[in-house]
């Protein structure tokens, strides 16, 4: 079975999930991103790497934050950007997706940034596009959100450069989270020796330990001596039902407060992919506290997305490497 993300020379062709990517490509993306961090501080926040290229943000599921950061990233690379919110309510969704894609290819789009509510949607699209088109997964169902996973590792590396000596805890709704899956694959691939997940059993997928993580149900035990705490967002519709009794009880048990954070190492950092539910999964004092790196995550997110786009387009833009 061919790895759909790599071309025959082992170069990145699509970014669909962290799983299946070799460590060296992950490092290539992060190292390239380092070189883009400074661009935002320049007077002219642009490089001409994607000049003449058309990047199409195709969002079958609503998102403001992710779409905006991808837009900014593409624009800083001098690409032309189209953003489409495609309703996924039409009857035959399969046809709609491919028809939409075909139309945009006919308009000479070069790169698709795709978000879809169904796991596997980005793989599905990647399978059907011609060879010169690149697909970036901006979130597919519960499956994967690779740029988020990458930007999280990028952020961690900024504060804790020695990834081989870290203990990381991921807290919250792992079951429904594409972010958690991407973080787990990114961390384990890059050599973080201990990744923990902390959640009630209702919010953990079957055989989650097979992803290479240690499972905890108790915050105090799970956070003990960790270097990094990665919080997950809890969707509104899951706060009260058969998964959890109430948002209040969830906050009491799994909400990150200063008191619980004290079990982690004193210099531990706190991440959250946003948007946050203050008072549900995270207390404001922690979100805005000195250990929080939540806003730098957003800044770095743009650099990481620029890096991914630049690497994907790299084969076609000879002589304009950064």
């Amino acid at each position, binding site marked *: *079975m061919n790895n*759909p993300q790599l071309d025959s020379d082992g170069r990145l062709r699509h970014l669909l999930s962290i*799983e299946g990517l070799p460590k060296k490509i992950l490092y290539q993306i992060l190292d390239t991103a380092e070189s883009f961090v400074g661009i935002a501080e320049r007077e002219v926040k642009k490089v001409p790497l994607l000049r003449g290229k058309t990047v199409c943000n195709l969002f079958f599921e609503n998102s403001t934050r992710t779409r905006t950061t991808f837009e900014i990233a593409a624009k800083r690379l001098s690409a032309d950007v189209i953003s489409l919110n495609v309703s996924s309510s039409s009857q*035959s*969704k*399969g*046809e709609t*997706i*491919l028809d939409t894609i075909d139309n945009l290819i006919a308009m000479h789009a070069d790169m698709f940034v795709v978000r*879809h509510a*169904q*796991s*596997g*949607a980005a*793989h*599905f699209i990647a399978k*059907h596009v011609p060879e010169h088109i690149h697909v970036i997964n901006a979130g*597919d*169902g*519960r*499956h*994967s959100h690779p740029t988020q996973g990458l930007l999280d590792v990028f952020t961690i590396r900024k504060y804790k450069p020695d990834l081989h000596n870290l203990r990381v805890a991921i807290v919250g709704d792992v079951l429904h989270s*594409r972010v958690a*899956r991407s973080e787990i694959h990114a961390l384990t691939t890059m050599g973080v020796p201990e990744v923990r997940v902390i959640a009630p059993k209702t919010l953990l*997928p*079957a*055989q*989650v330990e*097979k*992803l290479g993580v240690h499972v905890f149900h108790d915050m105090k035990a799970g956070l003990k001596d960790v270097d990094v705490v990665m919080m997950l967002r809890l969707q509104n519709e899951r706060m009260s039902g058969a998964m959890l009794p109430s948002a209040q009880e969830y906050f009491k048990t799994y909400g990150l407060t200063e008191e619980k954070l004290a079990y982690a190492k004193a210099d531990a950092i706190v991440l959250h992919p946003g948007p946050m539910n203050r008072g549900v999964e995270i207390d404001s004092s922690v979100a805005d506290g000195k250990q929080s790196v939540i806003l730098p995550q957003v800044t770095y997110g743009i650099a990481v997305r620029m890096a991914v786009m630049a690497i994907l387009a790299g084969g076609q833009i000879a002589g304009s490497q950064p």
Partner: protein
Amino acid sequence: MKIQIKNGRVIDPKNNIDQQLDVYIAAGKIVGLGTCPADFTANQSLDASGLIVCPGLVDLSARLREPGDEYKASLVSELQAAVAGGITSLACQPDTDPVLDEPGLVEMLKHKAKQLQLAHVYPLGALTRQLHGKVLSEMGELREAGCVGFSQANIAISDTQVLWRAMEYAATFGYTLFLHAEEPFLAKDGVAHDGEVASRLGLKGIPSAAEVIALASILRIAEETGAKLHISRLSTAEGVAMIRNAKLKGLNISCDVSANNLHLTEHDLAYFDANCHLKPPLRTQRDQDALRAGLKDGTIDAICSDHTPVQDDAKLAPFAEAEVGATGLELLLALSLKWAEQEKLDLRQALKHVTQASAQILGIAAGDLSINSDADICIFDAATYWQVSPGALKSQGKNSPFTGLELAGKVKTTLVRGVVVYQS
């Protein structure tokens, strides 16, 4: 019309035959095996040198998509596919549109199938009206119209009281119920086995417990009511153990496995292969091992194709949105042979599960080469490999998780009631 099939290796599991014999056919019946009957002069002779001559296969679960879903497949296309796969009798599921819950529909289907003179069609009637699991269908009327048993297709009866009454009523008249065991609440919205692969791919899972819990209810109610039961498409190791125990207890029960679950596991989903979106879901290696062992030791009686043709477009969607099902009629023989070869079993044992055993479950006179039985015969080449590809399939459903695979076992000629209905 008199036909002589010459020089073939005749394998008839029921009559324990495996030797080179000529088969003599007259007026649609087998009139001689090995010895030429007196006054027999063949009008036609078929040379089966180097080929296997066996009873036409009997499939326990196929969807023909008529009435109502002719855009997916038609009676003509699917019955042509059946005979191209060496299948001469098949049971079809009632989840058509409209549902097979009225005698008129069953009669019409039987009539249309008969006119085509391809494979014999044995409908399974809907156990409850509209398959809604609330009101019993007119089983007596449906039986008279030609239903060989009653099924809920993939739709479970969630109300156990209705299930109990349905079994009691069926038991009163000795009808066989064909039930697929899946607890609908645990399976709700699930698209893959709830395990390692579904967790990794972020797909909503169907836990093994969904089968185990449903099976526990079904078996218990069957024990209480004395209903004659066939469990369709078992998928879990625990399920196999439960059937084994139920048989030891003396329950009147039989069971089949889909050729898909016999050969594939959750890992075949790879990167969201929509052809692996199947019901029951592909489960773990441990489950597959148990299904294979169960088939070998007789806990599982038969292999079915679970033929479910879908339109190409219906598979062109992300995994969960892709329609459930795969084509199967033309793969049943080859996949049964492959199983037997892998398990080091002989051809007689391979064919038993798709001829004699399945005919017995349906209660039909088929699946063997006894003298005076209908000459429903499959002649195939066990040594020739062929590649599964859309172009190689007669079925209107072209989607298969086995696409690209090379399989041994190519049907050369199929006869139904002594008439050649397929020749490659």
